[in-house]
């Protein structure tokens, strides 16, 4: 054990703290690698066997979901700076930044959509004259590409400063009300504002345009609120998993930390259902066919109706009922299970948003889509390993934690 530490210590700069063993052992990395290979094979096979449409559907759904988780978590970290959160020292910040490498992976994968565009975007094969100025291939890929790129650049600039000594020292100064270092004060708001703008754009372009007639002004906000929640929930799940895997007295064994994570999962799930209801009630009441068809297809007609209900149950009902009590939030098993179910629910929600526009009458989920999803999960996990190591480092470094008495 000690020789590993010495080795790691020599590898890092002298100012950085001691490293811990990687949280991802060789088995986990191999498993992730296998998942990626399986997914890639399934994708290629589907393309060559004339089932390209379902392959691209899975590609888009997973891209949206995992980008949402990764970006949402980074924005959580920037939000912690903006609200001067010191309830967990530097660990919550590392937790939020853990999934960031996927932002670049997602950026490149986004351009992959180009090759499937005629199967994904109805307006490619049937251009709509009125919306052609906005919904055309070059403009869409240019603006969304630039947006995602700018988002990734800003996120990494922010993360770099956040990992610096100045920011870290600030996060553990629990008794002070001084503001964070200057560069954080600039970059954290930039990340948050850009997130709202970019992910609204992504929602309008990659989800709403799949049903080009439909519109909902709240849709962008709803989408990025879901991304934020999935980021926070992934952070909670990671905390619960690491709690068992890290050494004694790691930060995640502190019930206050679990409580704070649980509160965020609870609160933003309520926010999500609020945004969903706000859209539903307006569209329901106005009863304008150009708006209602989207909801009716997903909520009131088979085969999608049970899936929509499942989404609401997984994303809102379960977290709301199970995480209401203080004790439940502090119980890792409950928090972990609710988070895992919630993430599954959010994935399902992305599926229910995207796929009915492309394949209405039957749910095309099968081996292909399953394996492609597994592939994306593998990419996501593998890209998260360095970040998770930093989380482990922070969580076991014995930092003082803010004293927010209950």
């Amino acid at each position: 054990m000690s020789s590993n530490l010495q080795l790691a210590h020599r590898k890092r700069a002298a100012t950085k703290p001691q490293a811990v063993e990687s949280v991802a052992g060789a088995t986990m990395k191999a498993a992730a690698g296998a998942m990626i290979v399986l997914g890639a094979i399934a994708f290629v096979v589907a393309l060559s066997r004339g089932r390209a449409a379902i392959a691209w559907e899975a590609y888009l759904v997973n891209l949206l979901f995992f980008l949402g988780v990764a970006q949402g978590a980074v924005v959580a970290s920037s939000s912690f700076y903006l609200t001067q959160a010191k309830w967990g020292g530097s660990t919550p910040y590392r937790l939020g930044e853990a999934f960031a490498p996927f932002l670049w992976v997602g950026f490149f994968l986004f351009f992959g959509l180009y090759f499937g565009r005629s199967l994904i975007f109805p307006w490619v094969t049937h251009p709509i004259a009125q919306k052609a100025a906005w919904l055309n291939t070059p403009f869409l890929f240019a603006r969304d590409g630039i947006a995602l790129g700018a988002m990734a650049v800003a996120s990494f600039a922010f993360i770099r400063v956040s990992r610096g000594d100045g920011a870290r020292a600030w996060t553990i100064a629990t008794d002070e009300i001084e503001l964070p270092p200057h560069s954080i004060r600039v970059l954290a708001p930039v990340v948050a504002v850009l997130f709202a703008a970019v992910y609204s754009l992504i929602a309008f372009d990659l989800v709403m345009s799949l049903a080009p007639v439909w519109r909902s002004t709240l849709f962008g906000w709803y989408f990025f609120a879901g991304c934020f929640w999935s980021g926070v929930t992934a952070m909670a799940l990671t905390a619960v998993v690491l709690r068992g895997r890290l050494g004694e007295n790691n930060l995640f064994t502190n019930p206050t930390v679990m409580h704070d994570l649980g509160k965020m999962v609870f609160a933003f799930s309520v926010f999500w259902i609020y945004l969903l209801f706000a859209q539903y009630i307006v569209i329901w009441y106005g009863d304008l066919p150009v708006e209602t068809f989207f909801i009716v297809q997903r909520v009131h007609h088979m085969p999608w109706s049970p899936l929509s209900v499942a989404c609401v149950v997984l994303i809102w009902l379960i977290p709301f009922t199970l995480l209401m009590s203080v004790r439940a939030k502090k119980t890792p098993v409950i928090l972990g299970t609710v988070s895992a179910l919630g993430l599954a629910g959010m994935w399902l929600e992305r599926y229910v948003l995207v796929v009915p526009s492309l394949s209405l009458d039957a749910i095309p989920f099968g081996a292909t889509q399953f394996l492609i999803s597994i592939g994306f999960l593998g990419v996501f996990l593998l890209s998260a390993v360095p970040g998770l190591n930093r989380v482990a480092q922070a969580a076991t470094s014995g930092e003082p934690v803010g004293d927010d008495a209950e």
Partner: protein
Amino acid sequence: MAAAPKAIPEPSFRDIDRSVLRVMEPAGLAYWAWIGFCFTLVAIAAGLWARQIYSGLGVTGLRQPVMWAVYITNFVFWVGIAHSGTLISAILFLFRTKWRTAVYRAAETMTIFAVATAGLFPLIHLGRVWFFYWLLPYPNERSLQPDFRSPLVWDAFAVSTYLTISALFWTMGLIPDIANAREAATGWRKKFYTVLAMGWQGTDRQWRHYSMAYLLMAGLATPLVVSVHSVVSWDFAMAQLPGWHSTIFAPYFVAGAIFSGVAMVITLLIPMRKMLGIEDLLTEWHFDNLAKVVLLTSLVVSYSYITETFMAWYAGDPIELMTFRMRYFGPWGWMFGMMVLCNCLIPLLLFSPRIRVNMIALWVISIFVNIGMWLERFVIIAGSLRVNFEPSQWGSYHPSITEIMITVGSFAWFVGLFSLFSRFLPIFSMTELKEGIVWLRKALKMDRVKAA
């Protein structure tokens, strides 16, 4: 600030008591003149309302198709103002925000009076005011009940609930403070406070129940705040009218409410701070944080404007496009321009840390925000009605003297009540300031160090 470096004050509980209770000492002539002025305006407004009840709504400028204009704008405006109070007192309590303690009582008081003011407007807007109770379900011989499928009924429930819960929350917070004030008071004030304090003595038993109830009420008030302004926005969004029918209205209006409300808090507190000499209770740190909330909500409001504009263009519906074109470039386009200037552009100045703690600049910005937000409600409400579906139905609207004076009267009513309250009941929460005394001392230290 004084030229010579002052010693950093370290307030104690007694200092807090003294500063806050000093505000409640008997007032001078200037104060009573101000109260008189406010309530004179209220009397004029009341008189004009009486005339309106007698003569009917024809004395207003309301004409087809603009049947909702200044009165409903005022309603939405005042409900919006109310929301910031609950945000600061309830929501920031749940977040354990440290700068909340000095400002929350004033903000919450603002809420009560703002909701009370807002609640008048649906009544003012009723032609037959005496039938106002028809909005509420009560047993009657013909089993006539309000239609719960109507957003106006949701409004009645939401705003009444909001008024009740805010009042209860406010009262709960006041009881320990009034008990404290009771001790130092003499004469009729002592009797007044003794009755209001209801025998509160701060025993462990009382605090135990109080703390839990306070937490739960804050937990209830938080979703309530969001729901109330969402319901108010749904008065419009439920219609099919372009410019009104938009899914983003609920969270957009809530953000706008917090925006205008916090700006109003700033508008009230900066002069109060100066006049009462309480720079050591309300520090620059508090205003810095309030300004940041204003900035954040301004960005949300800007996002909403951009999204609505984009969606109107994207959807390509010709009637909706016409509504937006008229909103931006029509005869009332100047209002839209002012609205964008006041709500989107001027608050960008708050990105500067120096402006955020410059009391004059902050006060001026807050006034602009309130003007902008009032105009925004008017532009949305009356502006969308003015150019509805059928061009042959398009009309215009000019507010009459009745509507103008009632609007002025509502501001006078609000400010007058707030001024009255601040002299007779503690406008700062001594209890919570004491609870958060550690942070107050740090804030004072930080301000002095920065100034040095």
